[in-house]
């Protein structure tokens, strides 16, 4: 018998979220969006509760979570760094920028630094191709980033 440990307040929040979508299985993706918005990520316990509340198999919930790249089962860093790998950014050198972020922070794509500060992810076209290559950190957008700018950008967040 699997035991799920989760704080009561979290469980209550999830139950509320599911309820706001009438506990309908077809609303799974909306529920997951809301849950990730609330908790920052979708750990197994959260998926278990959602499955129970929507009366769907937890394997199904997991199948959906792992299908969509927007959903994450690991918490993002305090400052999530996203490097646009859209074609426009790619041909203007996004790959080198990505390499530099990986090297400087010593963390692979999709993971978070040990101190929990930074996480790196790639995204496909933010629609700011005029500024290619584009990097976003949280809500902030950096345009025309060169590998040489990376150190300075990271420094902004390190203090």
């Amino acid at each position: 018998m699997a035991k799920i440990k989760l704080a009561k307040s979290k469980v209550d929040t999830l139950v509320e979220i599911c309820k706001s979508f009438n506990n309908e299985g077809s609303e799974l993706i909306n529920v997951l969006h809301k849950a990730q918005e609330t908790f920052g990520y979708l750990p197994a316990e959260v998926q278990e509760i959602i499955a129970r509340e929507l009366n769907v198999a937890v394997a199904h919930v997991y199948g959906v979570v792992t299908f969509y790249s927007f959903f994450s089962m690991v918490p993002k860093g305090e400052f999530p760094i996203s490097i646009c790998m859209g074609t426009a950014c790619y041909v203007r050198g996004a790959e080198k920028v990505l390499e530099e972020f990986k090297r400087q922070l010593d963390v692979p794509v999709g993971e978070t630094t040990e101190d929990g500060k930074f996480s790196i992810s790639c995204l496909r076209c933010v629609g700011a191709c005029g500024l290619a290559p584009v990097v976003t950190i949280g809500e902030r957008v950096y345009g025309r980033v060169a590998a040489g700018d990376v150190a300075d950008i990271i420094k902004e967040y390190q203090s």
Partner: protein
Amino acid sequence: MEKYKMHILICGGTGCRASASEAIQNNLQDALKAKGLEEEVQVVMTGCFGFCEKGPIVKILPDNTFYIEVKPEDAEEIIEEHIIKGRKVMRLLYTDPEKKEVVSDSKHMGFYKKQIRIALRNCGFINPENIDEYIATEGYAALGKCLTEMTPQAVIDEIKESGLRGRGGGGFPTGLKWEFASKNDADQKYVVCNADEGDPGAFMDRSILEGDPHSVLEAMAICGYTMGADKGVIYIRAEYPLAIERLKVAIAQAREYGLLGNDILGSGFNFDVEMRYGAGAFVCGEETALIHSMEGLRGEPTVKPPFPAESGYNGKPTNVNNVETFANIPVIINKGAGWFNKIGTEKSTGTKVFALAGKINNVGLIEVPMGTTLREVIYEIGGGIKDGKKFKAVQTGGPSGGCLTEKHLDTPIDFDNLLAVGSMMGSGGMIVMDEDDCMVSVAKFYLDFTVEESCGKCTPCRVGNKRLYELLDKITEGKGTKEDLDLLRNLSTVIKDTSLCGLGQTSPNPVLSTIENFYDEYIAHVEEHKCPSGQCKALMQYVIDPELCVGCTLCARNCPVDCIAGDRKEAHIIDTAKCIKCGACMEKCKFNAISIQ
């Protein structure tokens, strides 16, 4: 808009916002307030102007002055000089790169001269968060006309006659699609707007939704009227927060005005729109996958038929069109099919929006009549290749499209021509590449994308694209053989021939088109193990020029793998077999003796 004497339009598209256009807006407003002009001059944040390369853009009406690369600190000067003293701020105007003349009015700029803006008609012109401004530009007039003067079939006939084809890429005739959906009887039907723009390098749907959300809502209602649907759903990428916000505002305003909801304009027709959020899966652009995703499932496509027009969302007849397609509809109704179908070519009428990007001077969003040539787009609108480099290729259609070359530059762009030359319209991404781009690497880049975005349901796409990627990787690593090119060709053909959905059916196009158009480059990789554009790291060689080397030993001391040999004051040599190509030697050399070959 009448009560103000002047209007200052600021681009509120994602690109310009990233370059502080909000701060510009605030500063402009503060400056106006300081001068007591806030009742005279209105500051409006609009949708994208398209000329992203030179953003942030500020435009002043009524004199059409077009300021580029504006910074927040320029706000005061604009107010002081232009608004108060009537003198244009010359240093913020665009300079024609060829004629070296300053151009003040955007109409006369090369970037805009050839454009006809239908889908983008209101982007950069109205405040997208104000329904009155939309209505002031004939907004919702088309819906009114349909509901009061036209039968559903008459609307369908008008769209059919206009020749409008789906702008999401496939180019299926929109009117026919509507007709199918209208003829299937059901107690419930749906109109779905596909706003899950996922093509890496295309952002027109986003710009339309950010700049003119009502045009899509109006068109969805019209579509609902023709097919007898009272529910509309917009499936939009969750990564588009600004577009989502503006849509929410627009939906609320339309409901408030009775343009969505029950008994629209007293016609008895009910229609409302809700939103569903995509979660990062390119394959959800395929309509059956999109529908499954809307139903809370994995976004895996299913075999057609049945088509959504018969059995779609919740098993009900559903019509799916993309944002740009919808944005054309109100104009067609207002101006008539006869007006629309005179624009463009015989089989591809109207205009197409392209996201022009890559190694080009004028990156941005453009809308041109179908039939415009690639040369016109790249050189006249795009301003040619960046940094004076040589044009090499233009990629259209994103991961589904192909790379076209010099010989295709005079091809008039339309659905069928692009298909005929091995590419496709796609959603309208257009990426320009120069001599520094390695075409094998470009193909690999697209395959990397496809491998990541394949849903995994069918074998050819799941495994085949992975193998294509691996073959390309092998070639860029210098380990490819000529036989690998045959394998690439056969595998590409089979993947196209056997894949379940559009993603797999088109994913080998970047490979096939680059082999076709840049065969020599592939041969150079596999036979000479050289990358002509010097992009493939594994094929690069660091070489010391013995003429320039003075034998200072600095490079040898800094080499992490000790692959540089040579006596003091003698020319050094790099052991290329041991070299890891870190570049440390080149960085350290004070005599520029080390180069890449």
